[in-house]
């Protein structure tokens, strides 16, 4: 098991180096001079230009520049925002909990509905139930989620006036960030109504972000279950006189979950791509919106650092998925 993980981790190193090369190259590939770009709108004087070039090391050979860059990253220095002048890592850490909270809620929603729906469709293969579930799943899978978000806003915020349009919590409430998770912080604050407000802000973005993973998980669960249900050991389980719940919910599902967990893990990348759109629609102050805003503000050092941090995080999550995969698949466990 440990050897398995170490091997997986070893495979990540070249990928991480590649990712860092892309992030490193990004600023140098932009049309125009990097110093001018980094200086932003106001421009720089000639002396200042020289000083900056030396400070950023742009006068050194490209290999040296890259090694220095890699060294900075390993020390936790991901550059400084051109606009806010704050370290990129610090901004990232501040905004990340918002994205994490949204993503966790979305993945919970997608799993909690997607897996049972997929099981039901597989067990009732070919029935009306199966066709309806798979039809809805395909619509979800084909959904332009930025439009889906707008539709939900029109319906729930516009027509019905049930939910707020944007943000994480009503401006009426103010309390210090403890965990960064609004749901938990609002409870800790003890202010009446704060939790309710946080929940109502979270509902629509969660639905929007969960849509595609939900559809993918339901489809994957169905096909994994169909494969497993025709296996000999399911017949063995039934020959023991076990009831359908135990046969399907334990013997079949336990095996079908192995590919489904991998699928759920792969949804992390999808989720972060979705977060870019979802957060933009709902003005959710997370890293997705942060990245889009930075692209527009031409805050390229944030884009560069964010790119690397996000890719690194996805790689870590994939490692975690491999770990879970190893835990639930006895053929890998040692």
């Amino acid at each position, binding site marked *: 098991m440990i050897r398995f993980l170490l091997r997986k981790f070893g495979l990540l190193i070249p990928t991480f180096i590649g990712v860092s090369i892309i992030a490193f190259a990004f600023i140098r590939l932009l049309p125009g001079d990097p110093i001018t770009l980094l200086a932003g709108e106001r421009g720089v004087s000639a002396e200042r230009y020289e000083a900056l070039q030396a400070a950023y090391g742009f006068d050194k050979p490209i290999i040296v520049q890259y090694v220095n860059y890699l060294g900075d990253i390993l020390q936790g220095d991901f550059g400084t925002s051109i606009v806010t002048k704050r370290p990129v890592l610090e901004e990232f850490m501040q905004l990340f909990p918002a994205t994490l909270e949204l993503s966790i809620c979305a993945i919970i929603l997608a799993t909690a509905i997607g897996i049972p729906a997929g099981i039901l469709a597989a067990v009732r293969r070919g029935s009306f139930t199966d066709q309806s579930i798979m039809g809805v799943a395909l619509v979800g899978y084909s959904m332009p989620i930025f439009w889906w978000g707008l539709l939900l806003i029109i319906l729930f915020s516009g027509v019905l006036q049930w939910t707020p349009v944007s943000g994480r919590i009503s401006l009426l409430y103010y309390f210090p960030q403890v965990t960064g998770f609004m749901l938990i912080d609002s409870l800790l604050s003890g202010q009446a109504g704060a939790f309710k407000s946080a929940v109502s802000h979270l509902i629509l973005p969660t639905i929007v972000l969960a849509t595609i993973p939900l559809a993918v998980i339901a489809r994957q669960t169905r096909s994994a279950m169909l494969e497993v249900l025709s*296996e*000999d*050991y399911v*017949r*063995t*389980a*039934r*020959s*023991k*006189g*076990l*009831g359908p719940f135990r046969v399907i919910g334990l*013997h079949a599902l*336990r*095996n079908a979950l*192995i590919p489904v967990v991998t699928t759920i893990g792969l949804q992390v990348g999808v989720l972060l791509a979705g977060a870019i759109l979802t957060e933009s629609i709902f003005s959710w102050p997370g890293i997705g919106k942060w990245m889009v805003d930075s692209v527009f503000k031409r805050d390229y050092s944030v884009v560069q650092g964010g790119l690397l941090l996000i890719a690194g995080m996805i790689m870590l999550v994939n490692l975690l998925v491999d770990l879970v995969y190893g835990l*639930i*698949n*006895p*053929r890998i466990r040692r």
Partner: protein
Amino acid sequence: MSLLEIRNLSVTFDTASGPFRAVDGVDVSVDAREILSIVGESGSGKSVSMLALMGLLPDTATVTADMMRFDGRDLLTMTKRQKRSVIGRDIAMIFQEPMSSLNPCFTVEFQISEMLRRHTDLDRSARRKRAIELMEAVGIPSPEKRLGTFPHQLSGGMSQRVMIAMATSCRPKLLIADEPTTALDVTIQAQILDLLKDLCADNDMALVLITHDMGVVAQMADRVQVQYAGQKVEEQQVRPLFADPHHPYTAALLSALPERATARGHLPSIRGVVPGQFDRPPGCLFEPRCSFAVESCRRGAERQGPDLGYALCNRPLINGVPADERVADAQVKA
């Protein structure tokens, strides 16, 4: 009274290209402590009839029977729930592919004691003790150490032993073994067959042994039932069957045994294949492959009495010669 009594069992599968009758009016009866062997080529419906008894067929199968009694209870009128308390406890089954019949996600102990948990009141430690006992009884060395192993760590022979331990864990009155040694090495085959025979004697258990191997039949069975294309074509005690088969198909099967090869070393084979869904002959199903067939065989086959092994044949063989020819010969001589 017989332990198991099935009359006129038919199984029809609903396939994409129309209904297919896999079992056609078969009778099966098994006495307590008896070993009955059901013999036939693949496609003869021998497994399907037993899977129908166990209730293990997919939803596409329609099962009908005039009678299905086990140990004095009517299986046809039982609810599914009632039937599940008989299946596993009183009638157990082992399968052709032991490696894929065990659930890869659960330990040997879990799978054996799950049966005990379902059908007995034993507590956890008692179940564990019983599991060790059972594993010892089926010849698994150092069973305490094997409790925690997963199926992929076991060989085919070991897997089948675990399956047998599991199937016999509630001391069933009837064990159905569906080609239990086909997937195993020849040396292991003999061991497993000996084990099954011993278990029957020790536990007062009846055994239905499904096989296509006449050698296995000779070694194991008390009584033999030969099936062809979903029909029972002959039924006799094992000695008289080998000495004097009455149905041409049985005779052909026996003459295909290597030990009975002709002096020149030529091993006869039955020409043609079992009829499938679309090429069922109108009369006797064996007629196209039968070397004794006459015109009347194209219209149907007659069921003979017990002295001719209930052979489903118009011209049952006596000592290798069709009965009507013997009569004709006798008349000529007279």
